[in-house]
């Protein structure tokens, strides 16, 4: 199981002084904080992002923050998102309402950063990192830095941090190959790569489709 390492927190509160202070105090302790000031902007943010936890001021001006909670809970992709609500009213009515809506923590205002971090860590401790095994793994082009060290009319030798285990079609691009008009030629690795040094490997790469002009360009390289 892969445990999540850095948590994204959405803080919904219109008290700028409070949110700036909390942001400073809890960011960097394994948390990344994003702040929204009202319900509508919080909803816009949540339409694009899925934070690990939401800290919601239940008394946002004249907005009714309670309505956001069922909106969140109805969407299956938020099922692992923790919801904390903050309020200066810790009446029994509020506590019962919070529990009924599936809120994870009810925090008394004024918020204390240390207490908040502790609550976040407690609730998020065993959160698995979201992951997805792609059912039909798509092909992806990978390119990396290498060095081509020698060349003849049918192949070249490249030193790279990749060990080819079987014949593979590859592409090599460089200013040098461009100069000798070989940038477009098809290439294939010949044998298994052999260790060079420090995690790099020597691979012989054959040219497929050598023209007379290309061969002449290679022969112009005098240095042996």
């Amino acid at each position, binding site marked *: 199981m*892969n445990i999540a390492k*850095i948590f*994204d927190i959405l803080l919904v509160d219109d008290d700028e002084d409070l949110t700036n202070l909390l942001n400073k105090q809890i960011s960097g302790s394994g948390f*990344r904080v994003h702040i929204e000031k009202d319900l509508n902007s919080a909803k816009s943010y949540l339409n694009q*992002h*899925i934070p690990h936890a939401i800290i919601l001021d239940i008394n946002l001006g004249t907005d009714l923050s309670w309505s956001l909670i069922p909106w969140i809970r109805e969407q299956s*992709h*938020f099922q692992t998102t923790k919801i904390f609500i903050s309020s200066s009213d810790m009446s029994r009515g509020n506590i019962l309402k919070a529990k009924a809506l599936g809120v994870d923590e009810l925090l008394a205002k004024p918020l204390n950063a240390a207490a908040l971090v502790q609550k976040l860590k407690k609730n998020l401790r065993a959160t698995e*990192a*979201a*992951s*997805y*095994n*792609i059912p039909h*793994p*798509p*092909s*992806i*082009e*990978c*390119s*990396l*830095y*290498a*060095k*081509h060290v*020698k060349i003849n*009319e*049918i*192949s070249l030798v*490249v030193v790279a*941090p*990749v*060990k080819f*285990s*079987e014949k*593979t079609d*590859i*592409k*090599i*691009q*460089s*200013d*040098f190959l461009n*100069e000798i008009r070989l940038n477009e030629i*098809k290439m294939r690795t*010949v044998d298994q790569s052999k260790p060079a040094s420090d*995690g790099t490997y020597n691979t*012989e790469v*054959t040219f*497929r*489709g*050598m*023209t*007379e*002009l290309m061969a002449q360009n*290679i022969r112009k390289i*005098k*240095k*042996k």
Partner: protein
Amino acid sequence: MKKPIVFTIDDDVDFNNFLKLTLKPLDLDLKICTTVDQFTALMRSSTPDLCIIDLNLDIAMGAGYKLIQAIRLTKGHDIPIIVISRRNSTKDISLALEVGANDALTKPLDPPLLISKIKQHLQLEGKKNELTFYSISEVKQECHLSFHLHLNQISEYGITLSSPHLISKGTLINLKSSALKEILNMDEISLMVDETSFNTDLKLFYAFCEFDATKPEISLQARQWILRQPV
């Protein structure tokens, strides 16, 4: 030891004589055909170790390509096919490789080049590559090497790639794919290979590449995509 069997087809008599002379030192069992009928009859009765096919047979346009396709259909992909074409005809060569040829050379053929290519494809013992290597000046050695892998898993902290080839830990790789556009809303991304492992049953290497922690938007985008996938 059995001699390697090589079938060739070219309607140019002079070229066929040149081929016989040039390839004599390799001690091959060389069967030279001048017509498509001869060649196909030979292919029906036996299987060569290598074929050399002229792309510009007089009989019909594209006869050479059709022969390549027929060999691949009936005999599979194990027989190396070298095509011979006119001078500097890169389009012909590209098409030949696309339809199944392994390699191509242009006329007039250079004997050492031809011999080296045949030895390479037949994996003949001894020094396969007889041609002298020329050193490339150090200031011109830098290049970029590209190949394909598969994207197996994505997590909110990184991606896992699979390949028959090992990429060393700590290597910076640049990845490009339409799948990346869909998942991360990026055409390409540069990542470091953080961990590698090997699956002995599948004979595949897995490379885990972590997202740049200084770019939280990537993790957020990945998480967003993952949690919206069907369970």
